[in-house]
């Protein structure tokens, strides 16, 4: 192909991009929303959504009421993890407290608690947890159980007055996110989420709009080719998506101290690959539906939901039922999420991550080939 053949094609592609940019600039409000939304989400997830327990409200039923039992409660609330919201006299009142959503858990200290400890006898302490909120119940149970375990070890240690140290001791080191900050965990996921929404939703909407209005037919009566339509339409959204990704990363790094341990270029490459897949996906939806309403629904079900639920953004893939784990392999968000976290937090290299890159590339190739095939068929 010589330059004379080539340059009109580039000119036509750029004409489409320019027109698309005009559309975007005509609707500045939508553009502003598309930039503000990710930041709002980031702040919400960064500050608001947290799986760490902080001042979890508890009920205490102290049937013993001795210095030893008071000491136990004091230790429990010492590090602000728990807060005593209700002091109850009767264990049966715990249910009422749960029903009124005043407390999330309860600790029942039995009669003769202090006496049993003195005698060196084993004592049962009852833990009750409001299980209606699964995640919270899980962490609460874990923390309370750990607390009781360590208290029991302390008491035993004091009783036997052993000078020797325990035989087994765990030395825990949390790699990559030592303080277990939610934001550090969320920012990479949010980058993927934002890119997925922008790419799929906007492209499927704008391309479907061209079908709906009959513009697509008009375009095909000009020398513009399908590839030029596709590229021309996608370029401005690729630019917007990249800007948004940068914005989310910048806020994540500036406000929430998200590190950038790995290679930014590798990250950019992964982002580009992911974006191409998402744009192709949006295009596929719009070619198949030719209708903005259906395209939006399709985008919501096939992108936004899997990105939130099946990518490891909120829930670890390893905890999912086997069938969902297999299903998650279809969606590129999963690979991208893994790559982002690995590069940002762990400094992983391409050698570490290549299978995930292949996953991204495979998805892009399949959707774009599918979109192109449908595109050609629908016209002829």
């Amino acid at each position, binding site marked *: 192909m010589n330059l004379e053949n080539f340059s009109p094609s580039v*000119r036509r592609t750029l004409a*489409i991009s*320019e*027109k698309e940019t*005009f559309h975007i600039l005509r609707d500045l409000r939508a553009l502003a929303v598309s930039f503000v939304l990710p930041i709002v989400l980031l702040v919400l997830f960064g500050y608001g959504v947290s799986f760490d327990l902080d001042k979890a409200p508890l009920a205490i039923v102290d049937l013993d009421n001795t210095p030893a039992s008071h000491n136990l409660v004091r230790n429990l609330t010492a590090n602000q993890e728990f807060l005593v919201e209700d002091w109850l006299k009767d264990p049966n009142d715990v249910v009422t407290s749960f029903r009124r959503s005043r407390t999330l858990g309860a600790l029942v200290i039995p009669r003769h608690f202090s006496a049993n400890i003195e005698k060196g006898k084993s004592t049962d302490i009852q833990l009750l947890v409001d299980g209606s909120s699964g995640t919270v119940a899980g962490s609460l149970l874990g923390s309370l159980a750990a607390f009781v375990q360590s208290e029991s070890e302390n008491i035993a240690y004091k009783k036997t007055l052993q000078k020797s140290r325990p035989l087994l001791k765990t030395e825990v080191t949390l790699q990559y996110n030592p303080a277990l900050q939610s934001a550090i965990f969320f920012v990479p996921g949010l980058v993927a989420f934002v890119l997925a929404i922008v790419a799929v939703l906007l492209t499927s909407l704008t391309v479907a709009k061209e079908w709906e209005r*009959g513009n697509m*037919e008009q375009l095909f*009566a*000009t020398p513009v080719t399908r590839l030029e339509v596709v590229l021309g339409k996608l370029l401005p959204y690729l630019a917007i998506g990249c800007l948004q990704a940068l914005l989310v990363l910048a806020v994540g790094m500036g406000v929430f101290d998200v590190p950038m341990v790995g290679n930014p270029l590798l990250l950019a490459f992964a982002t580009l690959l992911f974006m191409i897949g998402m744009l192709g996906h949006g295009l596929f939806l719009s070619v198949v539906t030719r209708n903005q309403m259906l395209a939006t629904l399709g985008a919501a079900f096939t992108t936004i939901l899997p990105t939130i639920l099946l990518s490891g953004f909120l829930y670890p893939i390893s905890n999912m039922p086997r069938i969902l784990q297999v299903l998650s392999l279809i969606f590129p968000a999963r690979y991208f999420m893994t790559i982002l976290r690995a590069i940002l937090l762990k400094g992983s290299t391409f050698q570490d991550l290549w299978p995930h890159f292949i996953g991204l590339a495979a998805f892009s190739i399949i959707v774009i080939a599918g979109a192109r095939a449908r595109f050609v068929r629908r016209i*002829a």
Partner: protein
Amino acid sequence: MSENPMQNENAIHVSNLERKFGDFFAVRDVNFEVRRGEFFGYLGANGAGKSTTIRMLCGLLAPTNGTALVAGIDVAKNPNAVKRRIGYMSQKFSLYPDLPVEENLRFFAGAYGLSGKTLLHKIDSILDETGLTNHRKTITSELAGGWQQRVALGNSLLHNPEILFLDEPTAGVDPASRREFIDIVKHRVQQGATAFLTTHYLDEAEFCERVGLMASGRLVTLGSPQELKSRHVPGDFWILQTNRAQQIKKQLLNMRPSVFSAHPYGKGLRVRTVSGLFDHNSLTHFLHSFDANAICAKGSASLDDVFHTVVKEDDNTAGEK
């Protein structure tokens, strides 16, 4: 490529063109030619196959049979070569309503590969040609319907197409705007372009040099408006003013087959008779035997008459099959 436009004097040459959707023939065995520089009209009811034909001619739809040569090029084989030489204005709004007039033109100019100074000059000249210069910054959706159609026409004229395909361009536009629109097209035709216009406004078809009429996927008749009238509705037309229309109609229809038809027309009647059956005096005399105040005047055939007659014939033959 063996496309030499000089070899073929016809702008459009269609033979045995067919398009099937499943078992349904949208277009069936259509044959016609359009000469270079001709203003050609394509008539037909909704669903008769006009748009399907035009879409095949523009390379937007592949024919299931037959060939269409546009500007000497086989559209099915080389649609892109055709697209560069034609302008197409579709039935649907082919504009971006959220963009100003100027940006719409700018985009389509780019889509035809124009750029730089050429593009800017071209936009200015199109704005001038379509009378839109004062509206160049107006958001397209804020223009009245007739003006929006001019923008769409402008879009299809940007690359100086040899052949203009206009698919019901004036649907829903007021008569004055329609006339102005057609004048812009006529001006292009005077400069050498060929125009292929589908319409269901029969007054528009009167401007066309030749008219083809489609019914249920077939091209049922073709010719100049005058030819079509003498072919399908021969005879004399009379306009009668009378208060006793019912009675006179009955008397006239008794004279069939010398009288072809008598239809209500205002308060009176419009009558078609065998050529020379009446002259002004004899008809007046005839009328006065029923209504002393009746007046008659010579009328003329319209494409409406052709359309109704042809479509009725087509329905009858279809019913016989």
